[in-house]
């Protein structure tokens, strides 16, 4: 039981995280204006930068999701996802500190509002998943060993 968990857990986490990010990317790509609105609601970036972030971020998410699902360049994909999650968590924390009652804008735009606290908890789980991939996935270990 423990052996099979050790064998299959990293791949399961990697593919699950990849699918989550692909889904998150596709719903944002489908409605970039609404996502720009969600970014702007954080009141962190200037006017045009909201649109630029809304244009670029989903494609970075999509690329990383595809890398994780396909198992190609897993280390890079997981590192970018971990870094993005840290940025998202910092933005959410700043929204909480400033008392902004906004939708996190993480997945479907314009749907039911997800509070920053729930989004923060969810991003913590995603961050943990990225670390599981980085620490345990055999594809990451093999590449590191080859490069080292």
């Amino acid at each position, binding site marked *: 039981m423990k052996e099979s968990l050790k064998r299959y857990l990293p791949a399961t986490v990697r593919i699950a995280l990849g699918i989550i990010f692909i889904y998150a990317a596709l719903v944002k790509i489908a409605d970039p*204006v*609404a996502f720009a609105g969600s970014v702007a*609601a954080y009141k962190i970036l200037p006017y*045009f930068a909201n*649109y630029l972030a809304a*244009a*670029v971020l989903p494609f*970075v998410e999509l690329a990383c999701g595809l890398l994780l699902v396909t198992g190609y360049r897993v280390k890079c994909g997981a590192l970018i996802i971990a870094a993005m999650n840290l940025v998202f968590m910092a933005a959410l924390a700043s929204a909480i500190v400033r008392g902004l009652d906004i939708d996190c804008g993480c997945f479907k735009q314009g749907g039911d509002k997800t509070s920053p606290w729930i989004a923060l908890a969810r991003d913590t789980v995603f961050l943990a998943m990225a670390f599981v991939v980085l620490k345990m996935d055999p594809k990451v270990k093999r590449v*590191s060993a080859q490069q*080292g």
Partner: protein
Amino acid sequence: MPKKTWLHTALEISLIILISACAGIAWNWTLLSGAWRGEPTQQAQTAQSSQAAATPADEALPMPIGLMQVKELHDAKEAVIVDARSVASFAEGHIAGAVVLPVEEARKTPPFPSGVNIPKDATIIVYCNGFSCHDSMEVGKVLMQAGYASVYVYEGGYPEWRDAGYPVATGGAS
């Protein structure tokens, strides 16, 4: 060698981000160029952004305005607030004290219905249903073309105002 490994990874990460960014910019080119043009030259002089692109002199565009500025002007009664949504949406809920002016109404001459007298030098703030709605920009442009000099577009619109807990009203046109 760990240093070599990290350098290699950093290069790969940079490449992935660069390719993704190029794909995102190419995919959203129309949106981005529209957003870029939407920030008029005079905005760079009055506000924080220095990214404003030059716009043709004959194409006057309303300036964007944020929630806090709208609230200040609303409280001080220093601006006319115009709701660019439909009359039905307006009746369901609107910023307290707003005047309803849907796009098709605004395109008539004069833009405001009879009985609504707004001086040409008044500060006008137009809003609609948030960032995914473009009617506020359309109405703003029409008002500028009609001779109103000080027109702003509040892009957060009714959803942001309502969610901020600021005064709203329901019912017919005021």
